[in-house]
């Protein structure tokens, strides 16, 4: 797919289909543009609609390594970019103690000894002692890489600001080493569950795609592709049921992943329809909140009709 002649939205759709993912024309076109314009892509949408999966498949389609940075509250540069290997530095300092002593042995005073060591100390802050974290790993990679910055809305705003340099220039600055620029800029995909507003600066640097819950036909195709063993009638019923649940006021609406899990659960127990006993046994695969479960079980007769 990476051959220039064959690279098109249709080719992306087909490649995703091969991996069992039904990509809409909108998803395929946006991915195509992200590749052609060499821009990061921000995928926003409710949880469980396949944003992370798009990132993984994008890496698989390009036969590229997936470097994933899972964001969370309190994530900082040390965990995302690099760390100095303190243990290794200490070990080397111990091993080289005699050599260091020899270096300063004939120094007349402390100042002279310090002058001699000054140049040598930089050796302990070279790339040999650097522990690359996902961002640096993606930037310094020699192979093609897809950098997946997952759930960026969970990270603090400071970290979001820090990402800007990586996104716009594919480079990072390390005080001891200077600026490291990517020889081969990674393909970057950011995902957000919209739990907080991302900054305009971040949005400006990315192409944007809102991934919403699929409509009935689309979800039917997804279930068909992921759970081919399920019967057509049961498939239609379960998708209709899921779509109805998404319109009701649940604490956690079921995503596509939950629909697939539920379809697999129904197949596993050999259900032939959405009977009440089958629903009671399998609904835990679809709903992940006790209150939601209780409410839906109470409303089952209405929902099934």
């Amino acid at each position: 797919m990476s051959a220039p002649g064959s690279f098109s939205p249709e080719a992306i759709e087909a490649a995703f289909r091969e991996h069992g993912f039904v990509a809409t024309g909108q998803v395929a076109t946006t991915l195509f543009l992200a590749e052609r314009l060499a821009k990061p892509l921000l995928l926003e949408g409710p949880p469980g609609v396949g944003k992370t999966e798009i990132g993984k498949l994008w890496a698989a389609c390009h036969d590229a390594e997936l470097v994933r940075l899972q964001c969370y509250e309190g994530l900082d540069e040390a965990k995302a970019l690099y760390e100095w290997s303190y243990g290794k530095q200490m070990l080397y300092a111990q091993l080289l103690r005699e050599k260091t002593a020899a270096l300063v042995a004939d120094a007349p005073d402390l100042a002279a000894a310090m002058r001699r060591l000054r140049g040598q100390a930089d050796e302990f802050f070279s790339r040999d002692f650097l522990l690359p974290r996902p961002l640096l790993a993606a930037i310094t990679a020699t192979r093609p890489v897809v950098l997946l910055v997952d759930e960026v809305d969970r990270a603090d705003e400071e970290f979001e600001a820090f990402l800007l340099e990586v996104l716009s220039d594919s480079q990072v600055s390390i005080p001891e080493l200077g600026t490291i620029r990517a020889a081969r800029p990674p393909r970057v995909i950011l995902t957000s569950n919209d739990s907080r507003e991302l900054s305009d600066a971040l949005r400006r640097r990315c192409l944007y795609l809102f991934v919403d819950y699929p409509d009935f036909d689309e979800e039917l195709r997804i279930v068909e592709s992921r759970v081919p063993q399920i019967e057509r009638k049961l498939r239609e019923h379960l998708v209709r049921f899921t779509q109805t649940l998404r319109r009701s006021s649940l604490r956690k609406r079921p995503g596509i992943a939950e629909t697939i899990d539920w379809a697999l659960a129904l197949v596993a127990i050999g259900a032939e329809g959405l009977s009440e006993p089958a629903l009671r046994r399998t609904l835990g695969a679809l709903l992940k909140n006790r209150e939601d479960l209780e409410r839906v079980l109470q409303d089952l007769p209405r929902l099934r009709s």
Partner: protein
Amino acid sequence: MIAGLERFVVELRRAGLSASPAEWIDAVRAVDEVGVGDRERFRVALRCALAKRVAQQRLFDEAFARFFSTPGRGGVERGRRATAGAGGAPRGPAPVDAPRALPRLDRSGPSDRRPRSEMPRLQPDLQALVARLLDGVPRRVGRLRHIVVEPRHPSSREGRMEHVRAAPGPPGDPRRRDLRGRLASEDEREIAAEVPRLVERIRLRSARRTRRSLRGTLYLRRVFRENVSRGGVPFVLPRRRRRSRRSRVVLLVDVSWSTARAAGLFLLLAHEFLRRARDTRTLFFVDRAVDGTTRMASWLRREAASGSGPARERGDRGPGSGIVRGGVSFSRLIGGLPGLVLDAPSDYGRAFDGLLRSTSRPSGRDTLLLVLGDGRTNRFDPQDWAFEEIASRCGAVLWLVPESIARWGTGDSALGAYLPHADVAVEATDLEGLARGVGELIRRL
């Protein structure tokens, strides 16, 4: 083609969807990649480069449908059909060098299409107050320091009130639906369904702020004292811990016809966070304040016990009938409060005066008073002195106005008399606005 696209971007900007030059360049490059042969692909290419939010994407789709409608088939509806169809949709957009005129996107409701002379005018004192605060003049007006308004396009913040307009947002987004509009119970239910998500968002933000404040500020004097004594190894940064001080909260909520819906939604949003307060009292009023604390608490407990669902009672159609907890709607809850007459005309002056005279009036430096109401007193005496007296006894006063800022102080609204006695005023015409109000409340707990 570029000239046509340029006109489209300019129209988008005028409509409130601002695209930076970099985004505009991205849009041109994107169109260059996909071409103009396939209308849907052309739309997606422009959209992913120019509209970076869900609400913006909706605005964009409407604008696109109008601007690139097929010649001879203009109009939004026809344009939408042309965009949405898969099989029967035209394959390409109308020639971009000959775009059709794009009507200005109507983000501010039908009233803003009236001539300027017919625009509602604010009372002069409130107009000056709002203009100064919105312009960032660092000066208090009475006690009022800050007005929290809905985010708007920069061009609408020129300090002239005719430019300060409500932005009700795209019609599909329940969080941006105008709470004073005509809404059926189903619509209310849809809006209320968004509450847990917003609560989660507020909790995430407030947790971050709490953690930061718990960490405390740098205690410089101790930095030197502690580090000098041990030669700076290891170097420590002592911080000054904030003393924990929990507030008492008094919610004074107007539940008349025009504000009951916003009141119900606000209480749903806020109750989760009010547990942090030392204690919370909820007073409902139309023309007199009635204590509804116990009723509110049991209403919220019912939710935990039996979940939310449709209201059981038939014929319950007033505002708040779709805000249901445990089978009981908010309108039923307030309708059954003894002493509260929902059909009475709103009378803020009488309610404030009665509250001031009662033994349950809010008072204390650690008391936070939150008023939710539009300040419309039906031309009764506003008795702002009574509110001033109440406010002066409280440590902090917040006022949430479920009405567009352009209407504050117009007609029978007495906000111009009340707001100078509050610390912060929040424009809360929709669920997002109420969430901003909750954010302001949490900050002061």
